[in-house]
């Protein structure tokens, strides 16, 4: 018997314009947690897609227990006991959690579905691993966190031996991440082999036994995690030393730019208000951060602010002008930029080219439109300028389809578009979600630069590190209300955590 559960030897996978994997080797020992580290676009997801049968490698071979296998489809991968939680979930939106978990391996009694056994097994797994889900809720109605727990249960339900987690912590709260880490250790202790794809160094250091690093499609090396530090890993990943701390000057707030009074937004999930009587100010030259656990009304607050959802009450004013009733376009032209939480849902038209996405917020301006016709030459020049300036990488430059770009570069394109408009107010929701340290460092610098240029910045983040590092003032949101205001220099992560969990609140 081989000591390896899965070996991927000398894998090469090409796409038009890109060699996504160039002679990559990855060996997963039985019962270990093996981290796969690399920047966005380094080829991690491609490598896993090859392992999962979504892509076929042009060169190289895959061995399971020492024997060569040909994984031609996800079904073959499933038969081999390989399960995967994808970065973008593969769930049927209008099905329930339970239906999604059993999808493809339904138990039947004659021609009818027999779900009671499945429900018992799912509930048992859910309890055993602390993966709390509501089996009868529809996917479209539940939080991203619960959607991910559904994905994990899907894998466990199939009794998979080799578990691939593709950036599983990107969407979780700190507490949930800790739980997930414990679950992963449990699973490994039971003999399951885990591939853990991430670019969060502290998680890799905490949970993994070994770590393989990819950079720009090439295999850099494999190290024992206990002999490594965050610095050594990040140097391997990026190829240079990275500054983890955001360097910024003290803030000098100016006039109030955004003023929100008594804002309420109705909830779609329940009868209560998702945002309840929220008032806040953001001044020029400061970064105000709304911290909180996912699903506490931050999303709805931003939707209400930007105009994506109607307000149930309250007023908004920008630079002293009442914009409560203004249209999205009026707000946008009036100086409000918005880096949306969900880049695929709102931020991009995925089937449009990169250049067409870059002009999404200002295609109607005279410089891009003349007599109703698009000025293609001006658009191309503008796109090329932003691509260069913000280092947006893609296979074919401005004409690359946005869908084919890596998540980090999609995000960079959005950041470039929103910041380039020189807004009065920049709303950034989870701007670094799912990005690697190099890109995070870059985006944080851009946000701080906006502040230093005298813009007002409203940052919504679930990452406490980001909250503490970037912001000048922190507001904690809990169940649709602001429950505390903090100065990042005088507060601690633990203190914030108590407010985020609803254990404490200040009278505002």
């Amino acid at each position, binding site marked *: 018997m081989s000591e390896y559960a899965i070996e991927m030897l000398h894998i090469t996978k090409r796409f038009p314009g*890109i060699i996504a994997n160039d002679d990559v080797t990855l060996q997963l020992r039985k019962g270990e947690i093996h981290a796969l580290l690399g920047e966005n676009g380094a080829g991690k997801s491609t490598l896993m*897609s090859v392992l999962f049968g979504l892509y076929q490698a042009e060169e190289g071979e895959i061995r399971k227990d020492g024997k060569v296998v040909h994984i031609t*489809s996800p079904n073959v991968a499933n038969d081999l006991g390989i399960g995967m939680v994808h970065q973008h979930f593969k769930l049927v939106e209008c099905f329930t959690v339970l239906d999604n978990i059993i999808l493809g391996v339904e138990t039947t009694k004659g021609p009818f579905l027999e779900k009671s056994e499945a429900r018992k097994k799912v509930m048992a797994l859910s309890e055993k691993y602390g993966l709390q889900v509501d089996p009868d809720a529809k996917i479209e109605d539940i939080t991203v966190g619960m959607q991910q727990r559904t994905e994990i249960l899907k894998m466990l339900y199939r009794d998979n031996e080799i578990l691939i987690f593709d950036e599983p912590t990107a969407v979780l709260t700190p507490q949930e991440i800790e739980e997930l880490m414990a679950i992963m250790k449990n699973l490994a202790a039971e003999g399951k082999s885990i591939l853990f794809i991430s670019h969060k160094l502290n998680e890799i250091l905490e949970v993994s036994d070994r770590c393989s690093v990819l950079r720009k499609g090439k295999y850099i090396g494999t190290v024992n995690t206990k002999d490594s530090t965050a610095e050594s890993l990040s140097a391997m990943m990026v190829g240079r030393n990275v500054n983890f701390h955001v360097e910024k000057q003290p803030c000098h707030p100016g006039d109030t730019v955004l003023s929100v009074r008594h804002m309420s937004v109705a909830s779609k999930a329940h009868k209560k208000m998702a945002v309840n009587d929220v008032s806040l100010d953001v001044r020029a030259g400061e970064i105000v951060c709304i911290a909180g656990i996912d699903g506490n009304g931050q999303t709805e607050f931003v939707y209400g602010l930007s105009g994506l959802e109607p307000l149930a009450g309250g007023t908004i004013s920008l630079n002293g002008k009442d914009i409560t009733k203004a249209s999205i*376009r009026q707000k946008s032209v009036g100086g409000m930029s918005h880096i949306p939480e969900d880049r695929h*849902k709102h*931020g991009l038209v*995925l089937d449009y080219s990169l250049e067409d996405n870059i002009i999404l917020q200002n295609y109607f301006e005279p410089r891009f439109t003349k007599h*109703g016709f698009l000025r293609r030459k001006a658009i191309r020049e503008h796109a090329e300028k932003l691509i260069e300036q913000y280092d947006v990488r893609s296979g074919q430059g401005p004409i690359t389809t946005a869908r084919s770009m890596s998540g980090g570069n999609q995000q960079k394109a959005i950041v470039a578009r929103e910041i380039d408009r020189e807004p009065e107010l920049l709303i950034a929701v989870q701007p670094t979600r799912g990005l690697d340290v190099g890109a995070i460092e870059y985006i944080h610098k851009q946000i701080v630069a906006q502040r230093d240029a005298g813009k007002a910045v409203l940052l919504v983040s679930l990452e406490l590190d980001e909250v503490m590092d970037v912001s000048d003032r922190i507001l904690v949101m809990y169940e649709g209300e602001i429950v505390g205001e903090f100065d990042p220099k005088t507060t601690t992560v633990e203190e914030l955590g108590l407010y985020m969990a609803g254990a404490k609140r200040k009278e505002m």
Partner: protein
Amino acid sequence: MQGKENKKKSFFSIPWVQTITASLICILLGLLIGFIVLLIIKPENAVEGISKVLKNFWNYNAKRQPKYFGQTLVKTVPLLMCSMSVLFAYKVGLFNIGVAGQYVIGAGASLYCALGLGLPWWVCLLAAVVFGALWGSIPGILKAYRNVNEVISGIMLNWIGLYLINTILTQVKNPTGKDTYTVASQNPSALIPSLGLNSWFGNEKTVTIAIPLAIIIAVAVWVLLSKTRLGYELKATGLNKNAAMYCGMREKFNIILTTAIAGALAALGAAMLFLTDSMQWECTQSSVPAMGFNGIAAAFLGGLNPIGAIFSSYFIQHITEGGAQVTTLGYFSQISDFISSFIIYLCAFVLFFRGIMSRKPGDRAGRSKKGGKQA
């Protein structure tokens, strides 16, 4: 990202080559199946039969050819306009199955203006455009404000439109038959002018400026979709309604505008046929005209490209006309419909064949990465 790949692109990986090849494969397969059917029914005449279908107007002597070529072109016009209607909506993410009903409304509006109100031809065309747009906007409004599927509302509106127009046009029916009066007999000013164009086609009366006009409109649709700000907005709305809303486009208005334009195109196509006296409206017809549905086929056979649709529309009309001639060889008259409809139904496979061609060997599931989370 990882440096340009130096591998040479194969000829068949160019999108437009794929589209044309796929369309040609469909046509050949359709003809082959038609030929096999002819063989089964009457083997001795099969070769002549299929060649008659393909030859269409070349079946006649050289002197009469231009005239019959002209007749084929006249009937290509409404087909092209219907395919424009389907294609336009499809590019904006809507499936306009209501094209047949919009065509009916166009026929009704133009004929009533011509025969009932005695208006000149250009007013009749304009009336078709206006009423087609209004009719077309109904599924758009339902979709935008009530999220009603445009296919369901479109099919229902097809039948409502048919009986509505049957009722209205009965008022201008020729009492001696089921059909409406000819335009020439009641109001010659409503006939679309020929401006001498018919002299090139053996003085075929029905050849009018509608033919060049339809081609101009097809080119205009292409320009609108690919070059203008409106096309950019409409396509963005079709591809991602949420992103369109996020960047401040009026996504509800855009959906309604799209269906209105699609409706106007189909209705104009009908007016461009009926105002030539090429045919009259049969006021007792109880099925929705096939023209609309053939427009769907023409749009797909043309690779969803307005310029491609010009050729595919002509081809479909060409074999339809040619098919009508095989009855002289002892085949059922329905055989012609059978052959042309087979090709038409194979058109749906254009996208399928394209999919096969763009797949690389050994990358069977290469496209499955497309499906991202949409929540």
